């Protein structure tokens, strides 16, 4: 059981969702985050003030999956989010100690497997 964290470009979020859906990865959450990953800064000008936008908007996916789904999830994130330019994002896979489905009290693998599978 792993927690897959994918940080991707906001404009690719829909492509990632599509890829995950096709890979039959169903349970996920996403948040808007700001971050910096070594890409070139965007320069913006507001009246006389020119600024380098040091943080870029990203979308962070958090997906808890059972072990057989880890590679499929990683592949889906890569397929959906890749443009080839600097700033495409990162994927982190971390071990997951416990998972509980609140409605039923199911734990671990049952809890991260969508209902009906």
């Amino acid at each position: 059981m792993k927690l897959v964290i994918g940080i991707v470009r906001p404009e690719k979020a829909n492509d990632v969702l599509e890829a995950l859906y096709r890979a039959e990865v169903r349970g996920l959450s996403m948040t808007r985050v700001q971050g910096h990953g070594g890409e070139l800064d965007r320069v913006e000008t507001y009246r006389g003030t020119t600024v380098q936008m040091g943080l870029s908007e990203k979308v962070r996916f958090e997906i808890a999956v059972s072990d057989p789904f880890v590679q499929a999830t990683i592949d889906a994130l890569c397929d959906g989010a890749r443009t080839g330019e600097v700033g495409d994002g990162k994927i982190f896979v971390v071990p997951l100690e416990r998972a509980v489905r609140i409605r039923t009290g199911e734990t671990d693998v049952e809890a991260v497997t969508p209902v009906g599978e």
Partner: protein
Amino acid sequence: MGLSTLAAATKVDTGDTAWMLVATALVLMMTPALGLFYAGLVRSKNTLNTFMMCIAAIAIAGVTWALIGYSLAFDGTASLLGGLNHVALHDVGFTPREGTTIPQLVFFAFQATFCIITVALIAGAVVERMRFGAFLVFAAVWSIVVYSVLAHWSFGGGWLTQNGLLDFAGGVPVEMASGFSALAAALVVGARKDYGRQALLPHNAVYVLAGAGLLWFGWFGFNGGSGFSTGNSSVLAFTNTLLTPCCTLVMWFVLDLVRGRKVTAIGAATAIIVGCVLITPAGAFISPAWAMALGAVGALPCYAVIVWRPRTRVDETLDVLAAHGMAGFTGILFIGFFAQLAWNGAADGLVYGNASQLGDQALAAAVAPAYAFTVTYVLLRVIGFLMPLRSTERQEALGMDVIHHGEEAYASGEGAILVTPEAGVEAEVPVSP
């Protein structure tokens, strides 16, 4: 030599002039209001670009109108096109234009605001993907080759007017011209890359409602000023501008309820625009009671187009065809049936025994869309041959605001590093490939 330059005999009326000065300002406000309305309807990453297309229309059309557009539309009464005697405001001064009691300068300014908003309206068809530079070029040429020509035909004494067309405040040059040009523009520029694949939703319905409200407010100047006086025609058009959109709103509520069991806010904002457009050509030609009927009945074809259009491959993004083209078309034809000599002092419609009026209206309703669509289509093909019309897919994904303006509508400023002039950073926005 135009008649207008010779006719300096009419006297300026101070009351009429006072009202027309106010009306001109009201109509100019409609363009930023339209910017707000449109900006609310697009995704947040395209907010500024959408708004800026409307601001650009003020800049570009304001200049082209002063330089040449006004002359082509309002110099003389040749059937096809005006002359060149008013180029760069030559002979446009304090004496009234023939048939009006206001200084020609005010008349010019009032008409300029019409040209401006018409150009801005077309932006609705191409938002979220058209290149800003290409839009500027398009706006400049379109304001001359389409707007000025149609304005001459229906306002400036051209062949449609000579033929007997009744068009109070611009069913032909403003509403049908923008609506059918928008369709052509959407076809040439093409759909957004995600159109039909992802849900592309309005990002701020409050902007849309506020924009619609401000547009309605400005429309009292648009229709109420199109009598160029404080006389009966202006009074009637002013009141009809209140009544028709009210009835359109009620009808829209009913249609929304029937279709989705809920009255929608964006539907209501759309209904306000549709109602105002419906009464634009009919302004002072129909009675208040018929104006109310027009508001209710006219909602039907526009609602139908709004429901039907997104099911097609045509990404006419903000439904200019439905809200302006279709509503203008309906309003122009409605005059042919229900115009009333007793109210307008000009002509009766079919219902009051003058069938030929319907013929005159139908001719304009056929010719104006055909002209606007064809010329816009060809014009954009030519511009597209000279420069790219649309942004790349990658730019479209990032949003037009950052790409074309280097700004964001909702910048947080977090993590932003101040660039001092000494640092000499003149870097291009590195996100554009």
